């Protein structure tokens, strides 16, 4: 259960999803020792909340994908413990929001489902992560553009897609992650949404998201298969992706189901190294 947390909700007073976000925040504080941070007041007088956000895990509740609450958290450089987006929750639960500015019947049902989900969270996946002992001590080639250094790992078992994600393939398993190009462009990564363990992902399908104050990046899976493990360290320390996106900052492990076909749309070190150099030059002129 969410207890003893700081809750930063959306303040969308002119939108139904905003009203629902407020309702979830209020309910979370009714029966537990959570504290609401008013986003409007936080912006103008942050001193009031500095102690709360400094001492408690932060739950961010966005109404919609404009992600005003997330952006505020990023602006204040806050590490987010958990995120909820009301419109996404509505979609997942097959609920149509009422559209009103005070929560209607369907909105109240959604609020209850979100709260129940938070209570039951540890049992959510029902599957235990099966992390393989994959040693990722790569050799790298590097290049520099301005103050930014880009390292690209080389080796016969390392593959890349043109969406700047890598796969390190051992037998019928692959460990996947993002490249330096992604982490340098995003700058400080503040939040990681892992793929679900047990999920079947197609090549180029979504394998989680990472988010910085600048942007959200959808991790584009280089391979097809089943997610067998995620790097749980990233949920507490997403900055590991900035520190080393190939070793401590890996994202997930996939049991491969169609690698012979996947390979057709993957490239090796030589091609990716040239591609990423070109992309960096194009972006920075």
């Amino acid at each position, binding site marked *: 259960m969410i207890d003893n947390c700081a809750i930063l909700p959306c303040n969308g007073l002119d939108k139904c999803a905003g009203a629902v976000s407020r309702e979830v925040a209020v309910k979370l504080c009714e029966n537990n020792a959570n504290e609401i941070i008013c986003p409007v007041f936080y912006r103008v007088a942050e001193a009031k909340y500095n102690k709360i956000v400094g001492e408690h895990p932060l739950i961010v509740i966005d109404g919609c994908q404009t992600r005003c609450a997330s952006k505020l958290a990023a602006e204040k450089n806050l590490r987010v413990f958990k995120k909820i987006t009301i419109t996404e929750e509505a979609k997942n639960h097959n609920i149509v929001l009422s559209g009103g500015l005070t929560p209607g019947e369907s909105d109240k049902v959604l609020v209850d489902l979100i709260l129940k989900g938070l209570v039951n969270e540890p049992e959510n996946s029902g599957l235990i992560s099966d992390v393989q002992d994959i040693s990722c001590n790569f050799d790298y080639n590097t290049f520099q553009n301005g103050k930014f250094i880009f390292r690209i790992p080389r080796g016969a078992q390392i593959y890349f897609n043109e969406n700047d994600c890598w796969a390190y393939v051992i037998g019928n398993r692959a460990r996947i992650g993002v490249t330096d190009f992604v982490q340098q462009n995003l700058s400080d990564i503040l939040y990681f949404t892992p793929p679900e363990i047990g999920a079947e992902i197609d090549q180029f399908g979504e394998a989680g998201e990472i988010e910085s104050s600048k942007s959200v*990046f959808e991790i584009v899976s280089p391979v097809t298969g089943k997610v067998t493990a995620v790097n749980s360290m990233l949920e507490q320390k997403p900055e590991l992706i900035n520190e080393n996106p190939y070793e401590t900052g890996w994202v997930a492990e996939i049991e491969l189901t169609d690698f012979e076909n996947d390979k057709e*749309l993957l490239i090796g070190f030589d091609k990716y190294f040239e591609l990423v150099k070109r992309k960096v030059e194009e972006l920075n002129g």
Partner: protein
Amino acid sequence: MSESTFMGVQRDKIDWKPTIDYSKCDYCMECVKFCPHKVFEVNEEEEIKLIVKNPNNCVVFCRACSKTCGPNAITFPDKNTTTQMIKAIRKEENND
């Protein structure tokens, strides 16, 4: 700015671009602010203030702008369909 090819296929042969549902779009322009590839164009003088001006600048399989869209007005083609299309074009070109 844009890649001229993706996986060896000419970018303009690949159908991958955002589509704006104007019945939902509220012209907040978050997508424009977000996209570094100048896919969108704003014209405040027109009735339709936002258009997909440079679809081939859009990075194939990137859907990030849709994730910034509050009213959920941006959609993309199905990834699987696009993947199969790319494979088919590559096969065809290899056979030529």
